[in-house]
């Protein structure tokens, strides 16, 4: 039996358009999907490579910063460039040097003035590896060797560069926060030499710029605003810091020569050929305040006076003390022949040895006798101050006059010979008028011979005058040093051979108190003060 097939179903005419439309839509959706996938993939790759270049650029910026920092922190003698920390280096078209102070270091007209005027800047800047370009403001490649390209493709080699966009110094003193802006650049360098930038980033990084005296040779054994140093001689390491108000006398040809420096300090090298080399002129620097010697200090509550002239004695003894009333002979002080002894327990009595004792002396004049202060157990600071706000007591000078063959020195308990420990005996005075010359000014301290054998003299407002050839072991930081044509000999080391500054730093805990020293400073950049920030474009 023959089966008849069912009649084929046909699409009604009115639905044929819908089928076509649906087919087209389906095709469109498929094409759109595939295209989107393709586009997505292409963009993802581009984005990925762009991120990769950006990372390379960030690394280049950090690397460039580290290279610049390594250069500025270089300790190699003759390659010191730390002074660059004190100079801004930012583009400024209004400035004669375009703002780039680093690049005109040795330009006779545009060279910036450094606080340490005679700093040797001849070392200059490193040479840029590409001719006619300047380090570090033009793109500096990390290597000229093509083998170190970070990536090579058919189009060329991918290489990174750095350049310094700007540096803001903390101040001319070189202490504080310095801010670097270093740009990292990634380029594709074609074989033809054409280079195409692929990514850039700007690193802003701040660091703490510190200045400190780092060697005995650089410590100021003498520091003064006004120097008439004459035929002085220094034995041992140390510098003579000349605190000047103008750099002009040193900026001419040969202005920083030892002879010129010596001439400007009214000195000569007859007795010490190194004297001119030791002189170090600096701008805008002040003498340290006498509170350097205040660490945990205790003050003796009485006012002392010393005079070995029987005509001038106030109390019938060589050493007098007073509080509110009339001067009295100082209790505990003994006189034997021409030796006056101030024992440990007669000053700052019943106080711990670990606390330095400040003794206010409104008058010291010795011509015939030796004054011995026991300072082996307790540090002693002699303060030559007159009482403030009231008229001085009759006959009181507020000064120290030492003449003849006598001594004013620190001794060990029970001993009569000076212990020669300058770091344990400080003579200071905070008040005064800071005379600008040696003429017509009375000496806060007058020295002659070996009358003050070992001491640190700190007179930010006062002057030290010689009344005869003198010698001293210690340090002299005074407003004015006037040798008056007498010969001054300064020994800068202790009897152990240690520099006095080192012994004083230990005794007075200067590093702990943030005092970085007085003398020729070395600037260094210390990382870790702030966060890095990167800017991309």
């Amino acid at each position, binding site marked *: 039996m023959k089966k008849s097939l069912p009649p084929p179903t046909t699409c009604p005419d009115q639905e044929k358009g819908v089928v076509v439309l649906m087919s087209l839509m389906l095709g469109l959706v498929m094409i759109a999907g595939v295209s989107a996938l393709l586009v997505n993939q292409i963009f993802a790759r581009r984005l990925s490579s762009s991120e990769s270049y950006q990372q390379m650029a960030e690394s280049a910026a*950090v690397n460039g910063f580290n*290279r610049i920092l390594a*250069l500025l922190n270089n300790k190699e003698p003759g390659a010191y460039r730390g002074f660059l920390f004190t100079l801004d280096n930012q583009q400024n078209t209004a400035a004669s040097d375009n703002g780039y102070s680093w690049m005109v270091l040795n330009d006779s007209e545009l060279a910036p003035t450094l606080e340490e005027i005679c700093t040797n800047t001849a070392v200059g800047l490193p040479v840029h590896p590409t001719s006619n370009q300047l380090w570090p403001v033009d793109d500096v490649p990390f290597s000229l060797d093509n083998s170190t390209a970070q990536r*090579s493709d058919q189009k060329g080699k991918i290489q*990174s560069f750095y350049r310094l966009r700007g540096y803001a110094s903390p101040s001319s003193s070189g202490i504080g926060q310095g801010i670097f802006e270093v740009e990292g650049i990634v380029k594709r360098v074609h074989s033809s030499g054409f280079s195409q930038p692929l990514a850039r980033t700007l690193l802003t990084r701040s660091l703490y710029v510190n200045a400190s005296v*780092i060697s005995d040779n650089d410590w100021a054994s003498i520091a003064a605003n006004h120097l008439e140093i004459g035929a002085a001689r220094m034995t041992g390491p140390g510098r003579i810091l000349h605190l000047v108000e103008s750099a002009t006398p040193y900026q001419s040809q040969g202005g920083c020569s030892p002879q010129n420096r010596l001439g400007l300090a009214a000195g000569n090298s007859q007795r010490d050929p190194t004297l001119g080399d030791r002189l170090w002129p600096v701008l805008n620097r002040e003498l340290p305040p006498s509170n350097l010697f205040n660490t945990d200090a205790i003050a003796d509550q009485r006012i002392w006076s010393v005079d070995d002239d029987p005509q001038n004695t106030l109390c019938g003894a060589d050493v007098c003390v007073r509080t509110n009333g009339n001067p009295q002979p100082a209790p505990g002080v003994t006189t034997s022949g021409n030796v006056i002894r101030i024992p440990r327990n007669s000053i700052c009595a019943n106080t711990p040895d670990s606390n330095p004792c400040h003794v206010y002396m409104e008058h010291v004049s010795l011509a015939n006798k030796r004054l011995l202060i026991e300072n082996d157990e307790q540090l002693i600071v002699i303060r030559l101050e007159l009482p403030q706000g009231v008229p001085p007591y009759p006959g009181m000078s507020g000064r120290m006059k030492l003449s003849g063959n006598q001594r004013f020195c620190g001794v060990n308990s029970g001993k009569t010979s000076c212990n020669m420990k300058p770091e344990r005996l400080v003579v200071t005075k905070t008040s005064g008028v800071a005379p600008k010359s040696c003429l017509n000014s009375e000496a806060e301290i007058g020295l002659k011979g070996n009358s003050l054998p070992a001491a640190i003299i700190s007179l930010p407002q006062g002057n030290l005058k010689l009344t005869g050839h003198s010698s001293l072991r210690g340090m002299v930081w005074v407003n004015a040093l006037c040798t008056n044509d007498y010969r001054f000999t300064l020994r800068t080391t202790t009897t152990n051979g240690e520099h006095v500054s080192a012994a004083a730093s230990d005794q007075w805990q200067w590093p702990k108190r943030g005092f970085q020293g007085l003398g020729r400073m070395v600037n260094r950049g210390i990382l870790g003060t702030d966060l890095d920030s990167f800017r991309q474009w």
Partner: protein
Amino acid sequence: MKRHQPNHHSGFTLIEVLVGAVLLSIVMMSVNRITVTTLAGNATEKKRKQIEAEIQNNIQMLQRTNSQLTLDAIPVGDQSEACEAPEVFLISRLEQTGGSHYVPSPSLSKRTLQVSNLDRGWRVIEIMYEFDAPEKTLSTETRLVNLHPNFIPNCP
């Protein structure tokens, strides 16, 4: 009279079917190729990201260790050695297996540390990462890092 009816049984001819099949196969092959390329690209991209991320992590570890290694953090007995040759000292600490400042090398790239002398006394630590690029079109790649020992400024 019998009316001639249209032939409703006529479908695609063999030629039409063959042409359609060829066209479809071409389209499918293209789509397949794109899919395969996409999948392969994804794998390459993943590998690259892995390598780069590992290097970046290593760089950060080195920088962190450098910043932690201050002069105070160095035993007093070692300080003079550290200040004498700071770059060599830092490298020795970074590579000292088991040491407190040890930073291991990344596993997907080769790391070398050396002192780079740029000029008189001007030195940095140069750290080079070398790896084979996952893309077939690229060969060996390098990444470079320079370090300046953090403790140098505090050396006497």
